[in-house]
């Protein structure tokens, strides 16, 4: 009963009302839901395992039997695109979760305590922002070595400053609010004030940034995998499929069209959703 009431409350909330009236945002939400569904139900959606080779059916163009065609090992492109959703969502979520965690911590500490600590932390963020983002990711991968984990770490590091800056500016705005001052004068300890009174105001802007950040992370990760520095074969990954498919141009264009379209659609979904959330949470813009 209680959860039903809170659902009703959520549905009637002005933010969710504004969101529902925004068709672009709804399209984004639907795309993201379809992607999550595809990732979860991949084995039910295709009977062909993504790694199953069939050398007699190498490089077949799209047909009824293989709707997206096959690659040089006779593997089904459709199955690889479907299973690729899993790694793609993972490579979108993992770096965002990491940079969100670290960036929020840095932003909270810098904004709340201010002073020299704030100065040092923010200069550090400026330094990270001084690099073109893909270049910094490449530098980190260059030092740590290619591979999925290192690429995730690299993309996470690149994006820390964005979250830190957002959180810091929200904290600076709320620090002087009466309710925070009141908690302080009542003798609440700093961690408690930060967590109970300051942190909640950052959730809105962070949700928007994180949603858009997933799109960016998927784009960056597919770029690294395309360069052979991210996801390694034989994992079914869209960026890696493009890198491999490139070698079979000009004949086998289907090797490029489907994985690329999958990346674009995924990023589009998160971008639409992120923009929609921003408009819904901040009606002034």
């Amino acid at each position, binding site marked *: 009963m209680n959860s039903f009431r809170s659902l009703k409350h959520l549905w009637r909330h002005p933010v969710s009302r504004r969101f529902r009236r925004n068709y672009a945002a709804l399209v984004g939400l639907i795309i993201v839901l379809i992607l999550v569904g595809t990732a979860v139900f991949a084995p039910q959606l295709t009977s062909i395992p993504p790694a199953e080779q069939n050398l007699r059916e190498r490089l077949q163009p799209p047909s009824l039997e293989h709707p997206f065609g096959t690659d040089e090992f006779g593997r089904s492109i459709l199955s690889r695109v479907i299973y690729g959703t899993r790694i793609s969502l993972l490579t979108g979520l993992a770096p965002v979760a990491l940079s969100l965690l670290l960036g929020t911590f840095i932003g909270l500490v810098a904004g709340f305590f201010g002073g020299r600590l704030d100065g040092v932390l923010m200069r550090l963020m400026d330094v990270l922002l001084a690099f*073109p983002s*893909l*270049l910094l990711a490449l530098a980190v*991968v260059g030092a740590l070595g290619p591979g999925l984990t290192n690429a995730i770490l690299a993309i996470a590091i690149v994006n820390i400053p964005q979250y830190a800056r957002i959180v810091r500016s929200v904290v600076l705005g709320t620090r002087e609010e009466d309710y925070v001052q009141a908690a302080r004068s009542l003798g609440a300890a700093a961690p408690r004030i930060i967590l109970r009174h300051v942190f909640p105001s950052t959730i809105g802007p962070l949700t928007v940034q994180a949603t858009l950040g997933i799109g960016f992370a998927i784009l960056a990760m597919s*770029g690294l995998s395309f360069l052979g520095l991210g996801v390694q074969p034989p994992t079914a990954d869209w960026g890696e499929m493009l890198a491999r498919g*490139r070698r079979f141009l000009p004949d086998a264009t289907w090797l490029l069209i489907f994985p690329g379209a999958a990346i*674009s659609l995924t990023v589009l979904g998160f971008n639409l959703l992120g923009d929609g959330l921003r408009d819904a949470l901040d009606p002034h813009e």
Partner: protein
Amino acid sequence: MLTYVLERIFGLIPVLLGVSVLVFTLTWLAPGDPVVALVGESAQGISREALEDLRRSYGLDRPLPVQYWDYLSGALRGDLGRSVRSGLPVAQEIGMRFPATLRLTLAGMAVAVTLGISLGLLAAVYRRTVIDYVAVVLALIGVSVPVFWSGLILMIIFALELGWLPASGSGSWQHLVMPAFAIGFASSAFIARITRSSMIEILRNDYVRTARAKGVVSWRVNVRHAFRNALLPVVTVVGLQFGSLLGGAVLTETVFAYPGVGRMLVDAIRARDLPLIQGTVLFVSVVFVLINLVVDVSYAALNPKIRYE
């Protein structure tokens, strides 16, 4: 104005120092012995004494601050070490390849600015019409499509199917068209978004309404009264977009086998050529910081408000 420029230049010094520290740290981030990282695979399997000699000759046995100071003073003199693979000075390798990347980035910027501003303007002037929706959708596609994929699609259509443009390589303006469009399209989307919203904001102003009321022709109001003011916020995005263009260059150079620093960097990462990776990243980042300085200064020159803040 001069005070502003000097302030900005001095403000950059700590950032550039930070950038150099971070790039220097990459050696220590690399797993295993830094000597092996710097000398490459050839260091494996040599005797312990020889390894210690190498460590001394690279100065890796000295305290970290001393090593950093050496690296920094070397970099300031243009000495970025030697490439593990080719044995050539890193600065020379960059010098050979950077002009091609600069050409590509500038061509991409030209595409991005032309396309982005035209789309943004059309969308704002014809707000809530088909033109606006088409422009918004194009901008959305631009930010969502990976540059290496749009590059590949362009290549399939214009090089492999139609045969109008060369599929790869460099040397003529024809070689630049597809890579420049691939990276420019992505950035044009951001520029179009800012141009559109800034133009919509400006068109609401009283002086625009006054001009219309005075009977000034519509296109003249749009161009002379509104557009010039709407351009200001666009300038700042242009600076930031240089960063994504330089990043996009790494990917498109690989797609089109274009001999710039981006492709060199990717090759260096594959070969674990650490000095070349460090040198390239340091150089391109410094260029990026300086471009942003130029953009900020021109922004201040265009907008007197900034100078007095």
